[in-house]
């Protein structure tokens, strides 16, 4: 039985190719995600504990303990080849407009070294550092370049580069022991010791010996294997990665569902095509059960082949991605349990998807083999049961949707998701009720243009069940993609609106001395800032530290020029103090403002002008309360959002450190970046599902072309040019695809709106902006239609290539 199924697959690979591809893609997604997450997770764990990468045993001293005298004690234990204390220091490093957080570690002795130099030398003096290749790349630095450290006036030089890549979150550099010593790190207050065991020594024994010896000196010491310490820190990370992994598997699940629709469709058509073969089997004496079993085994074989290919492809893709993200440097992780699960799911999905089509398709009378019955017209009346069931789903979904949109409820998003799910089920399963009508509508648009378009429209409309299944897969995939697009675009716009509404200051520069006290912005800097790219107005504000009630805030003096810069025209009366709206609730109605020069009792007014750490009074009051530092804060107006990045870079360069910058543009830029990345990732992930759906379109077409061999031959005999035949198939494919895509876009836009409105309701936003990124969505639709047209190329060539006489001879 297996051998028969296997030989069937081997001899007619084309028939099964698209099924195998659909399954392979879904399983590749599952497997690839698993490997990717595991490898990135390990890389993250190792990168964060880079100092322990080569160690075998780690000694940890908790903050309350003392590490005095541990160094020599460790070194004296037999079986310890090398030991060294671990120091880490983080600094924000700036090069031009780019700032990065670098984690500096001390250079370990040879046995514990995990990276090697690619250029230059190791640091020796306190002013020398070595950067990892990844950190240097991100900052654009070479050997010999100087580095500015945020908040410090000293400058430091890069003397070497190492081969290690940067982690996703942490970039490493090396500082000399001299530098650490200068900052107060000694062997006695080190909190970790990395230990390398001598070759041949047992790590377990070493741990025991060390534990015994060291707890005698300091009882709170912990000794553990390096692997265990790494695993613990990875486990802390794991929560974040678990979410990441779950999201990936959710998307892979969508791809799998779309794949199952495609497979079910393929099996329906293949079995219809093999009616004669089935009839022959029955005529020769096979029972219905034996025939069904044979096809189920074929489905199993297909699922197995596809899943194996998928796992291999998934691993390959994950290797590629982790090589690019440099996580591969820390080693590839193959989570066998999850890979086996992916394989199993692929096989299961194939068999489940093929089950009903096989049941239906094998109910063939033995006479089929002798008298093939021409394809009957499948225009059946819609099933009452289906109409009622889907109607109920849609009603329930609509009800929940109304609930989510109308009520202010913290769970609004969940309700909206539930509504979306119910509506989706109603629409997807109700396909046969409305897709044929939509196809006819679409057909009416072009069937009058000629004989070939009319033939195409006829063909697309005459097998509604098949066309519906194809269109349904597209609806699902495209719908999800558009939902996420719309949701992201809307959230982005809403957030940006909120930001500019709630924080009217576009860019703020704030100058302090090393001690944190306000200082005047250097004249050179302020004049440059006023003229920076994108800045059209600016104002310099004086200020000083003061106590407003019990809050220590930076007190600023009002300047009429604020009106031009922020667009807010209300000023500050002499009896008022403006504080941030968040603070108003925690302060009494009148409050004493106390400073170095005096105090004043003022009424508290909430305002969007000042941030959480600021307060504002009239210029007269400022002079009364503090000794104002002139020009310590500068507000810049950048009216054109498209100049936001240029302005930020220019200002960053002028002020020298990102610490001094804040403002709605900075926050907005961060949001934009995250949103864009999120959008790119989700679109990419869902594109996989759309690809599978489009493979389904090409597949449906290809198999129906095979079924219509005789008709194609007749048309060619009657004088239809080969190219016209291909055009006819193209039109058919596009017609079905367009119906699916349009429904998907409409549904996706609605669900996106629903989700955004629900989020707004649950988050208490006063106004939610709804946005559809028209160029992007239109672009996606165009690409999908193009891909559908492409899907018709191969079937078209096959249909047109055969000589008309060949097919006619088969009577």
């Amino acid at each position, binding site marked *: 039985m297996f051998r028969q199924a296997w030989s069937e697959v081997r001899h007619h690979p084309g028939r099964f190719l698209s099924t195998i591809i659909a399954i392979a893609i879904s399983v590749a997604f599952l497997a690839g995600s698993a490997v990717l997450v595991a490898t990135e997770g390990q890389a993250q764990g190792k990168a964060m504990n880079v100092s322990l990468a080569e160690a075998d045993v780690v000694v940890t001293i908790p903050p309350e303990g003392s590490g005095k005298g541990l160094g020599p004690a460790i070194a004296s234990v037999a079986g310890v080849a090398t030991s060294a204390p671990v120091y880490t220091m983080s600094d924000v490093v700036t090069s031009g407009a780019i700032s990065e957080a670098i984690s500096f570690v001390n250079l370990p002795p040879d046995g514990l070294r995990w990276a090697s130099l690619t250029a230059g030398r190791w640091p020796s003096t306190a002013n020398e550092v070595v950067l990892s290749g990844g950190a240097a790349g991100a900052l654009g630095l070479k050997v010999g370049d100087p580095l500015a450290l945020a908040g410090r006036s000293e400058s430091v030089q890069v003397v070497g580069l190492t081969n290690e890549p940067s982690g996703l979150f942490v970039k490493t550099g090396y500082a000399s022991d001299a530098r650490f010593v200068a900052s107060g790190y000694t062997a006695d207050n080190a909190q970790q010791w990395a230990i390398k065991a001598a070759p041949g020594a047992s790590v377990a024994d070493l741990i025991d010996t060390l534990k015994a010896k060291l707890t005698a000196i300091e009882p709170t010491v912990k000794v553990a294997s390096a692997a265990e310490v790494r695993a613990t820190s990875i486990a802390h990370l794991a929560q974040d990665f678990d979410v990441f992994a779950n999201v990936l598997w959710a998307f892979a699940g969508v791809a799998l569902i779309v794949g199952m629709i495609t497979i079910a469709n393929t099996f329906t058509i293949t079995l219809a095509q093999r009616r004669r073969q089935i009839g022959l089997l029955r005529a020769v004496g096979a029972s219905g059960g034996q025939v069904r079993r044979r096809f189920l085994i074929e489905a199993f074989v297909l699922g197995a082949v596809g899943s194996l290919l998928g796992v291999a492809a998934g691993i390959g893709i994950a290797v590629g991605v982790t090589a690019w993200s440099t996580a591969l440097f820390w080693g590839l992780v193959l989570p066998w349990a999850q890979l086996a699960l992916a394989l199993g799911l692929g096989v299961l999905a194939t068999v489940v998807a093929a089950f009903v089509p096989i049941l239906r398709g094998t109910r063939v009378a033995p006479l089929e083999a002798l008298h093939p019955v021409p394809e*009957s017209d499948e225009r059946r009346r819609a099933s009452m049961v289906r109409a009622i069931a889907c109607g109920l789903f849609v009603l329930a979904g609509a009800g929940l949707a109304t609930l989510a949109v109308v009520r202010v409820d913290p769970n609004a998003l969940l309700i909206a998701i539930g509504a979306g799910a119910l509506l989706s089920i109603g629409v997807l399963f109700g396909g046969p009720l409305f897709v044929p009508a939509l196809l006819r509508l679409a057909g009416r648009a072009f069937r009058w243009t000629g004989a070939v378009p009319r*033939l195409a429209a006829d063909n697309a409309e*005459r097998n509604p069940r098949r066309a519906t299944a194809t269109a349904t897969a597209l609806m699902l995939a495209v719908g999800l993609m558009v939902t996420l697009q719309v949701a992201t675009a809307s959230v982005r716009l809403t957030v940006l609106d909120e930001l500019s509404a709630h924080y009217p200051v576009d860019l703020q520069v704030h100058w302090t001395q090393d001690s944190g006290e306000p200082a005047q912005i250097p004249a050179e800097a302020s004049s440059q800032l006023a003229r920076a790219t994108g800045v059209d107005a600016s104002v310099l504000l004086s200020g000083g530290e003061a106590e407003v009630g019990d809050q220590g805030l930076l007190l600023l003096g009002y300047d009429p020029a604020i009106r031009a810069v922020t667009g807010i025209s209300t000023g500050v009366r002499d009896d008022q103090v403006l504080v941030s709206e968040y603070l108003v609730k925690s302060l009494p109605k009148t409050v004493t403002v106390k400073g170095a020069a005096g105090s004043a009792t003022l009424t508290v007014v909430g305002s969007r002008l000042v941030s959480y750490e600021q307060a504002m009074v009239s210029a007269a009051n400022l002079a009364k309360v503090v000794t104002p530092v002139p020009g310590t804060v500068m507000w810049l107006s950048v009216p054109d959002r498209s100049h936001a990045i240029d302005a930020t870079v220019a200002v960053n360069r002028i002020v020298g450190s990102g610490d001094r910058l804040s403002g709605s543009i900075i926050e907005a830029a961060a949001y934009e970046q995250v949103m864009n990345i999120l959008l790119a990732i989700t679109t990419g992930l869902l594109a996989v599902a759309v690809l599978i759906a489009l493979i389904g379109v090409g597949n449906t077409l290809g198999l129906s072309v095979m079924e219509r061999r005789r*008709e194609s031959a007749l048309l060619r005999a*009657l*004088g239809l040019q080969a190219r016209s035949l291909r055009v006819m198939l193209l039109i058919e494919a596009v017609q079905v695809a367009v119906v699916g895509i349009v429904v998907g876009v409409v549904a996706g836009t609605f669900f996106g709106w629903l989700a955004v409105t629900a989020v707004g309701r649950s988050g208490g936003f006063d106004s939610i902006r709804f946005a559809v990124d028209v160029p992007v969505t239109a672009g996606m639709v165009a690409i999908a239609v193009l891909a559908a047209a492409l899907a018709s190329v191969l079937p078209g060539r096959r249909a047109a290539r055969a000589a008309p006489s060949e097919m006619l*001879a088969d*009577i």
Partner: protein
Amino acid sequence: MTTTTTAPAPTDQIASATGLTKTYGTGEAQVHALAGVSIGFGRGSFTAVMGPSGSGKSTLMHCLAGLDRPTSGEVVLGGQVISQLSDRELTAVRRDRVGFVFQAFNLLPTLTAEQNIVLPLELAGRRVDRTLLAGLVDSLRLGDRLTHLPSQLSGGQQQRVAIARALITQPAVVFADEPTGALDSTSSHQLLNYLRHTSQVMEQTIVMVTHDPNAAGYADRTVLLSDGRLVDDLVAPTPDMVLAAMKKLGA
């Protein structure tokens, strides 16, 4: 049994083939469907091409009608050499200069009878001659069936629609491949009578492949093929004469 060569004079021929061969496959499995056939058809003639299975009669028709290209030899149709035309040109020839009637699966299932009839004209982008159409529909008694789909027509009605389609382009030759194979005797008789009428009154050249001696009796010439060669050429034979000629082949 007289074996008179009845090839019409070359100037009168609407279609002819010279030295046609057609070979399929290679090596051991090589099949010589046609092994050198030369034949001509006069304008307005109704010829039956007969022979046992595997004699090459369908292959001959395919080559004559531009459905396939011969391995060697020349085919002239309506004054044009078609044997080595490109696929595009051959398709155009089939559309404009040839009419087809097959044994079964003649019609497109999604088109009505009328749409099926005018299909070749639509594909060519030519206007429908309403008078001609009306005349054909009338003489084939299809008037009340024009809006029906093929699934709603009987076998005989389907074949009549096929003939109307074959004739609507006023082709040089109408090729019929076993047109009565799936019909009962009454329908067959009506159909063959119509074909004869068309060839005699409207001067339409018809070449019909058949294995039925009774059908051959309606034609005014019968040629016999065996093993890819022309072996007999009879003028207006009766079914008995045809039967006898075929029995001779079998011997």
